């Protein structure tokens, strides 16, 4: 792919970066046969626990494992500090943006984000206009995708304010490393991530509606066991010690949400929902939804139940909105953004479109509402034919696309096909915001492209995951 990528262990070549010193020594001492054996053990472990996900549209592959790469990814405490501060700032801005867009609309009046980008957007929910978000924090759980290209610079690649997933892998991967390499863990002084469920529970409790009792009842709402992320939903309910419910377990009476229990109805105050807006309530959104709870939104409007995340937060995930994030951060926090945005060409703008069409082979082009790595063009990795086909799509509906320069994502050592080789990675830290502020457990989900040279890390497209360490400098 032309220019060499920054490797988090070896820099741009020959260097031995301090963060990886321990790990590197350990890798040198560990025979690949042992690694292979551990890899098989890990796979058996994950399968036995049922840590699987379903892939949409692939029937025979009903439950697949996400490849777990044995070799941890390492960040130093000082690198983490940069991320922590930057993420806190960004998520504060995202929360302010959501409240503003459904409230006074000041950012629109100030002309910073064009109105039509918001109002025409499917992720924007007119039903939310004027609704006071119960709990006051629309995005208590955010997952911000981060990439780096050298030792200093971190870029935000994507904001996930709707329902970021993957946190179960962060915790399971750590658990797996503990089980597989206890000695390595013992000497590496890795900051723990295990308190994530406690932090999440505290955040959810802090956002309970005013009418809730002092010990609010919390539930995790899942679309059901056929959903691709069901494992995570069940995992979280378990770790939080709360009920895992489906729509049919809940009902609404007089604007209060109840769950059906063996002893009759029990009021529910906070719902950590993993069901999309569209399907939440057939009376407010899609009338054909079988997954939702009729009347839920009415109860929400009445302030009797907190939804985490709030309805309509997906607007912040839009990639066209993303391109305005530096201005958005400045507008709400009054500060310069600490994390960088990848320069983004909005194809809806004539000049940008012209540039993009002229430079397709160098660019990554993405659908503005897309996710999961679908519907995108990675110019440098595409054939002429693919590029020509994409050009047609782009020309017919430019509003639907943005383009970015192809970043040379950093690589980390990975154990693939019996050898250790560099693979591109990204990072999704999970940012929790409650009534008492923002918390981030040190680490996150590192996704890794298992194919050499590939930049696509999405699990739906064969990407794997790694344990992510934050160690003292």
């Amino acid at each position: 792919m032309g220019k060499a990528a920054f490797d988090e262990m070896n820099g741009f070549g020959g260097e031995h970066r301090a963060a990886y010193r321990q790990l590197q020594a350990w890798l040198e001492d560990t025979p690949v046969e042992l690694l292979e054996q551990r890899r098989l053990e890990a796979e058996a472990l994950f399968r036995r626990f049922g840590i699987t996900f379903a892939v949409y549209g692939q029937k025979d592959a009903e439950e697949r494992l996400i490849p777990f790469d044995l070799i941890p990814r390492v960040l130093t405490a000082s690198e983490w500090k940069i991320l922590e501060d930057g993420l806190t700032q960004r998520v504060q801005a995202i929360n302010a943006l959501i409240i503003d867009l459904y409230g006074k609309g000041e950012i629109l009046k100030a002309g910073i984000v064009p109105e039509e980008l918001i109002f025409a957007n499917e992720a924007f929910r007119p039903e939310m206009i004027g609704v006071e978000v119960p709990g006051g924090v629309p995005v208590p759980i955010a997952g911000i995708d981060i990439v780096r290209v050298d030792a200093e610079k971190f870029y935000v690649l994507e904001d996930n304010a709707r329902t970021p997933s993957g946190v179960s892998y962060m915790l399971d991967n750590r658990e797996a490393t503990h089980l597989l390499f206890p000695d390595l863990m013992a000497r590496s002084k890795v900051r723990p991530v295990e308190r994530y469920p406690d932090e999440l529970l505290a955040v959810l409790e802090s956002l309970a509606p005013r009418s809730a009792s002092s010990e609010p009842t919390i539930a995790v709402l899942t679309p059901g066991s056929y959903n691709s992320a069901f494992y995570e939903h069940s995992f979280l309910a378990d770790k939080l010690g709360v009920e895992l419910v489906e729509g049919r377990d809940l009902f609404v009476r007089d604007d209060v949400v109840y769950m059906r229990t063996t002893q009759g109805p029990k009021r529910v105050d906070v719902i950590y929902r993993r069901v999309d807006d569209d399907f939440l309530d057939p009376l407010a959104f899609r009338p054909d939804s079988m997954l939702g709870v009729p009347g839920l939104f009415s109860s929400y409007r009445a302030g009797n139940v907190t939804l985490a995340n709030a309805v309509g937060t997906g607007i912040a995930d839009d990639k066209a909105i993303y391109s305005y994030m530096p201005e958005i951060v400045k507008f709400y926090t009054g500060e310069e953004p600490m994390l960088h945005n990848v320069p983004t060409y909005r194809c809806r703008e004539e000049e940008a479109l012209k540039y993009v069409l002229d430079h397709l082979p160098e660019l990554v082009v993405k659908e503005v509402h897309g996710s999961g790595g679908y519907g995108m063009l990675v110019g440098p990795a595409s054939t002429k034919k693919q590029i020509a086909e994409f050009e047609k799509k782009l020309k017919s509906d430019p509003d639907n696309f943005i383009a970015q320069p192809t970043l040379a994502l950093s690589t980390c050592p990975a154990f693939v096909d019996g050898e250790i080789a560099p693979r591109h990675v990204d990072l999704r830290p999970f940012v929790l915001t409650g009534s008492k502020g923002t918390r981030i457990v040190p680490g996150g989900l590192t996704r890794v492209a298992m194919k050499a040279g590939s930049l696509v890390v999405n699990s739906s497209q064969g990407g794997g995951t790694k344990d992510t360490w934050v160690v003292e400098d």
Partner: protein
Amino acid sequence: MHLKLRHSTRYTYDTPVRGIIQMLRLTPRPHDAQHILHWRIDVDQDATLKPSEDSFGNIVHTFWAEGPLESLTITVEGEVQTENTNGVVQGTPERLPLGLFLRETRLTTPNDAIHKFAGKTAGSKPTLDALHALMEAVHKRMKFDIGVTSVATTAAEAFKAKHGVCQDFAHIFIAAARSAGIPARYVSGYLREDGGREQYEAGHGWAEAWVPDLGWVGFDPANNCCPTDAYIRVACGLDYLDAGPVRGVRTGIATEQLDVEIQVTQGSNQ
């Protein structure tokens, strides 16, 4: 005009249902040309109607009824005093940004055919003329037919089929207006037709579009006219789903039979 309305909706279930939740948009708000003299909704089952307001400013009543229920009747009775303003609607609570009414919804997404139709019909005409032209063209193209389309029929589907009910006419008009860059919305309500008919099987649906200097103006493509004082305007939204009179869910396995009776009469005291 002094209009009296009586609207009863009766659901009968072949096996008793366990519970019902419904949201009713059956209560009009006053505006400059519509004065509410009296209005009342009743449900014949043990249930409290809880009033609230949605984002569009519509008055919504939600109720929950516990089963077993064999039937359910909702009765609306009201009297309004209306004036003819040739469709111009003023004095409604407008809390949403105009730009929102350019938004496509699932029921009103224009396909290529509607885009073309909108482009050809509206051309570069001034807004009001463009809207009248669209209304006329929709009316001309579409045949009014009951029972061919359903509440889930999209504008594009009805446009292709060339027939439908007032709601399909309105959806096509809205899709085309938005395609031409004109903010538009769906309105539900009642109509007393010319000729003195008093009994109706369904409420009425039409559209409103935004005209600079005039504000929101009603267009009824099913009747090819702008609403007059024979119309009672009840609720509005981006499409039928936002503004339709009833949305509800029942629990239990039952087949329902629906009987709707609407009576719109002219008061004698005016």
